[in-house]
């Protein structure tokens, strides 16, 4: 792991002997840095392209979600066709917290992987639930489109109708330990 600091516009080497990695760009025959940060050179694992990949991990963490980014969000509103949420942090455990929440939505058909025609949004999410989801599209001018159609995705924290924190009891139910009431959710498998 190299500890040299790169600055935007700094020459990192010719593209023949280096593979482009995140936060670098190509201009002409050469590879350049795009932000200021420590340089990381990852040796190539494939035989066909022996060039090392050069990247710069962002010192501030990721700033915006991209396709296939796992995000943490909070449900803001539901209707029978979709659930709206605000993306609050990026990464499976919310490693980089966003400065401002980003609008997103989970459509009914993206809630789970099987029996998608029988899914009901109201039995999967409630307003206020904390959800782990994956970006499937940058979406329209407003919302990112997310999916929870994987075992480890879904509601990670939920509050019952009475306002108590609930614990997951199965892949589709949370239980309020105080009152014993069960509520339906698309539960994320603990990781």
């Amino acid at each position: 792991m190299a500890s040299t600091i790169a600055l935007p516009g700094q020459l990192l080497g010719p593209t023949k002997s280096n593979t482009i990695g995140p936060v670098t760009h190509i201009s002409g025959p050469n590879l350049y840095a795009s932000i200021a940060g420590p340089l990381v050179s990852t040796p190539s694992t494939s035989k066909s392209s022996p060039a090392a990949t050069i990247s710069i991990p962002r010192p501030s963490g990721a700033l915006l979600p991209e396709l296939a980014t796992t995000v943490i969000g909070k449900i803001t509103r539901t209707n029978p066709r979709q659930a709206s949420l605000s993306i609050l942090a990026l990464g499976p455990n919310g490693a980089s917290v966003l400065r401002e929440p980003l609008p997103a939505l989970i459509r009914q058909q993206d809630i789970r992987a099987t029996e998608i025609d029988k899914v009901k949004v109201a039995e999967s999410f409630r307003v206020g639930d904390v959800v782990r989801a994956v970006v499937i599209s940058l979406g329209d001018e407003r919302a990112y489109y997310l999916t929870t159609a994987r075992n480890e995705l879904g509601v990670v924290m939920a509050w019952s109708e009475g306002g108590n924190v609930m614990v997951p009891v199965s892949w589709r139910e949370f239980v309020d330990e105080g009152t014993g009431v069960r509520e339906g959710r698309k539960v994320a498998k603990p990781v």
Partner: protein
Amino acid sequence: MQADRRRINAPAGGTAPPTFTFADHPDLLRRPTRTRKPDEHRKIFLRTGIVPSASGSAYYEVPPAKPAPSTGSLVPTSSSLKITCTVHGPRPLPRNAAFSPNLLLSTHVKFAPFATRQRRGYVRDASERDLGVHLETALRGVIIGDRWPKSGCEVVITVLEGEEDGWFGEGREKGGGWGMMSVLAECITVASAALVDAGIDCVDLVSGGTAALVKGEGGEGEAVVLDPAPAEHEVTAACVVAYLQSRDEITEMWMKGDAGDSTEGLMDQAVRAAVMSRTVLVEAVKEGLKVGGDVQPVNGAPKGGEGKGKDVDMTG
């Protein structure tokens, strides 16, 4: 121009307090002279990361060339320059905005009301908006906009102390707006530092530089000087460039006045000035990274990925 309806404003241009100069303060009645060489830049102070609530910020200062003479007068003989820049973004676009595959850049330049000898209003006037447009073209050429779809970025510059347009002894009407040129060059440099601090992808560091064609000693001949302070010279033409050194590109050029056949020479000198301010910019950015790097181990994760120390177990 629409009036500012939100504040109780003083009558336009009517209430400037009289400033008296006395014969026993000869320094005040003499035009300040340039003490540095024609190809010498003033000293620059630049630091990033000064506004915690912004994604990126920087502060730029050019201290006065020499300390004010101890005349006891409140009128400073030469101006210094103080500029702060904050960058907000990438942030989501407002609700009613259309889809944009690129980063939408917006720039605001505002002089503080007390920034110049002539008091500024609270609402941006035409010259401030003009500076904002110049700054936007300068920055648009360096930002890699397609890395940030559906988001906007706001660059807000506040000029706390601006360059004088001319020597105050010559009166207000003699000012030709030359101070704006230096202010723009410095705005470009400080905005570049703030953008890097915000972690927005750029093809290069952009730095601003000014050069001016000035009347020589005693009004004879003309000479090109780098980084002019308008109070010290009689400027006939000036040029600002935003220069990317490692790509040898210019993203913004603004020339004013009649440079005659020395137009190209003036541009070359402005580029030289930009190269000089870039050395400071590079050091400031590196210093900003070091400060940020010192903070990280406190979180318990010196290396091994982005912000691991802040992990919150959300598995329920």
